[in-house]
């Protein structure tokens, strides 16, 4: 049976177990003179039965579903005659996809070699067997769990405590998912990155000034080894992020100052949500806007004043990205400006300073650390942003600081290297993971520093 069908079935079984245990606990209580003679309410006996029924079965189901594919693939590959064993993982995945296409009926078995057709039969067989075993095992475990809980419906057992303990553990596991995600991210990039540095030396990666990750289809092809120098990508990323911050920081900061110090309540309550709408617009929409409206506009404008602009310019991507992070800067600055104690403000105004002088000489210096933290967070946003640059910044890895040129960024390269089918062991594919690791480290550092600054600043005034 399919995992998708087994899952609801297990849940139905859990409900049945709940109902049975509920009735059982009432039956047990009846001769004693009512449920008040039980250690726990019937609900808890029933809930415990449901948990015992569902949790072990779901764990087994998840484990089986997670590793089923891999194990079956391994068996199928191993079953091939020795002389056609695939030499590399890339070849293996090619053979596997052929086999599964035959098994799925997309490819006529008469057109493939005999061993492939045989393997397809085996694959189908194994899948059917695995499905049967999985169904039997999961249902058995569910039944056993429920049966065990059934025997433990007794007046002297406190079911409430065990249910609450279990729930608390489940809650903990849910909280730990965040840690697991981080661990997953680190491991998923680290292994491939290490393999990448086995093929390309780390110094070449960090200090190389040319990026062209073509790898050869044949070993003797001209220009067979690609160049994996990250410098052009870094300058491209920094150029676009710098343009974005040049747009977003003044606009965001001045908007925040105006809204928190000058605007009437009514203006504030209409303008703030409108500004936040900018943050809610999906990035693909900004990408569309940048690529199809802003970039041609900038090119035409540059031509008008006699400059040469590429149709995919860093300026277009940067400007639009700047618009995107305006609300980010403004809401963070708004928070820190409002956190400055009113006493500072009143003191300055009482000395005769105008509102703008108070702002510039008293509040702004006091809020500066928090504002810098906010800008760092915005910068990490800009560096990690993908869709705008994928659609508007282009692919050419030019080492330039001319904003009218086309540049490429780290995120663009990750996306383009990994879109579509790829062989898992080529330097080209692996380099995307190395870039991902760089990106992760840089944004993580920026965030940690920014959060630390913001927190420290908050403590100062709390």
């Amino acid at each position, binding site marked *: 049976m399919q995992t998708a069908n087994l899952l609801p079935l297990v849940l139905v079984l859990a409900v049945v177990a709940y109902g049975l245990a509920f009735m059982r606990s009432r039956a047990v209580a009846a001769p004693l003179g009512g449920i008040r003679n039980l250690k726990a309410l019937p609900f808890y006996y029933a809930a415990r039965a449901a948990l015992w029924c569902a949790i072990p079965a779901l764990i087994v189901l998840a484990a089986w579903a997670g590793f089923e594919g891999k194990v079956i693939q391994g068996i199928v590959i191993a079953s091939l005659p020795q002389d056609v064993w695939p030499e590399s993982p890339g070849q293996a995945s090619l053979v596997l996809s052929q086999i599964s296409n035959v098994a799925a009926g997309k490819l006529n078995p008469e057109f493939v070699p005999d061993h492939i057709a045989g393997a397809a039969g085996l694959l189908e067989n194994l899948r059917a067997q695995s499905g049967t075993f999985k169904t039997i095992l999961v249902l058995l475990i569910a039944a056993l769990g429920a049966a065990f809980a059934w025997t433990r419906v007794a007046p002297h057992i406190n079911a409430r405590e065990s249910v609450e303990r279990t729930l608390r553990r489940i809650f903990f596991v849910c909280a730990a*998912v965040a840690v697991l995600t981080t661990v997953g991210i680190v491991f998923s990039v680290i292994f491939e990155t290490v393999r990448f540095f086995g093929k390309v030396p780390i110094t070449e990666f960090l200090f190389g000034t040319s990026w062209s990750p073509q790898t050869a289809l044949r070993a003797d092809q001209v220009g067979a080894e690609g160049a994996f120098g990250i410098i052009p990508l870094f300058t491209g990323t920094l150029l676009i992020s710098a343009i974005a911050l040049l747009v977003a920081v003044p606009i965001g900061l001045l908007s925040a100052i105006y809204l928190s110090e000058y605007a009437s309540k009514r203006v504030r309550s209409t303008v703030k949500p409108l500004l936040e709408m900018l943050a809610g*617009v999906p990035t693909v929409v900004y990408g569309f806007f940048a690529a199809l409206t802003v970039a041609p506009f900038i090119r035409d404008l540059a031509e008008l004043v006699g400059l040469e602009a590429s149709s995919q310019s860093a300026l277009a991507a940067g400007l639009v990205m700047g618009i995107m992070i305006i609300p980010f800067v403004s809401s963070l600055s708004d928070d820190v400006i409002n956190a400055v104690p009113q006493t500072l403000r009143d003191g300055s105004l009482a000395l005769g300073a105008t509102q703008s*002088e108070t702002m510039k000489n008293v509040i702004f210096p006091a809020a500066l650390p928090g504002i810098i933290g906010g800008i760092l967070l915005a910068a990490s946003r800009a560096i990690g942003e993908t869709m705008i640059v*994928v659609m508007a910044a282009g692919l050419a890895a030019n080492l330039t600081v001319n904003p009218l040129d086309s540049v490429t960024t780290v995120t663009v390269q990750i996306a383009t290297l990994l879109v579509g089918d790829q062989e898992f062991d080529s330097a080209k594919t692996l380099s995307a993971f190395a870039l991902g690791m760089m990106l992760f480290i840089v944004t993580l550092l920026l965030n940690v520093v920014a959060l630390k600054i913001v927190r420290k600043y908050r403590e100062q005034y709390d």
Partner: protein
Amino acid sequence: MTDQRSQAELVRQSLKRRYRKERRFRLYGIVAISIALASLFILFADIIGKGHSGFVKTTITLDVTLDSEIMYLDDPTDKDQISMADFVAPIVAALQDHFPDAEGRAARRELGRLVGSYAASDIRDLIEANPDLLNTTQTIEFLAHDTVSVYVKHADDPGYSIRLSEQQQMWVDELLEKGVINTSFNDVLFSRGDSREPGNAGILGAIVGSLFTMLVTLAISFPVGIAAAVYLEEFAPQNRLTDFIEVNINNLAAVPSIIFGLLGLAVFIGLFGMPRSVPVVGGLVLALMTLPTIIISSRAAIKSVPPSIREAAEGIGASKMQVVLHHVVPLAMPGMLTGSIIGMAQALGETAPLLLIGMVAFIVDVPDGFFSSATVLPVQIYLWASSSEQGFVELASAGIMVLLAFMISMNALAIWLRKRLERRW
């Protein structure tokens, strides 16, 4: 004394300058806000301006005689004959009825290019379904060819290039006048999947794909997020591990979304061998991505439940878990729901991580389950926006309008929920 007066004089003299500065500073603020709001306005205006024509389709209605002779088809139940038959000929013949002087192969070919390339298969499907229709005359509405569609909709727009010959343009003008070529609401957009031809492409496949993906995301991130928030707020002991979890959640909230794509590629597809481009994997990746948002907003909601509620419940003998499940969580639910809806809206608009797990394939069929290849709305927009065919730009903008409509309604729902259910203590 004179000294003091001159000081006062100095201040008074400088006042003008200082007030000017004050006004200028205030003006800067207004300018900044105006720029931000103008960008928002331009963005929306641009998309509506580009996309409104995506909701219009161009059709040609013809009286087609399904003549067995010109189609070389005697027996529509015979599969071989069907595959050999010429279904374009009756369409060209029908068009020739309008233009009797269009003779010769070149003219016939140009006439045939007025209808979309799916017109022939429309006729084939019709005849296959009803063999009795052979040798009868039927009034059939065809989708116009994309070049015709562009000419009809954008003849005056310099952004579009017209790829019709002058002869064809004259024909189209005449057919427009006769009412043979019509424009109407583009129902194709909402009833089909992707296509190589703009006129025949729709977003239904992408919407259904988004729906499946969002269901997976919701089913995982909502319960897990709330449970995690409850644990951290109510049960977590003050220790290193708890601190570590908290730091992790805060950092995850700021990790670039494309990194989650790498995670999905390496773990779900690489390690667990899950298939590419399916909603389950997309949903899992987006769930991990939205989890921090949901946890953070749920924690804020739990925090806002006053301690008196907890104390009252404890006072009448409730256990800690009962206090939480019977009182705190129900009272915090509006805030949790609001946060989750906002998180889901973010996930709905997310594109980058889905590119990496292969949800960018060209998929014609509307997905029919969690494990069938699918794409989602923002990815479909990306695919159309980067297509070189000019008809796809208006479709991409139309898709954006649909996506934004979804997101705005989700956010409106969140605001309504908050207003409706929120309690001030």
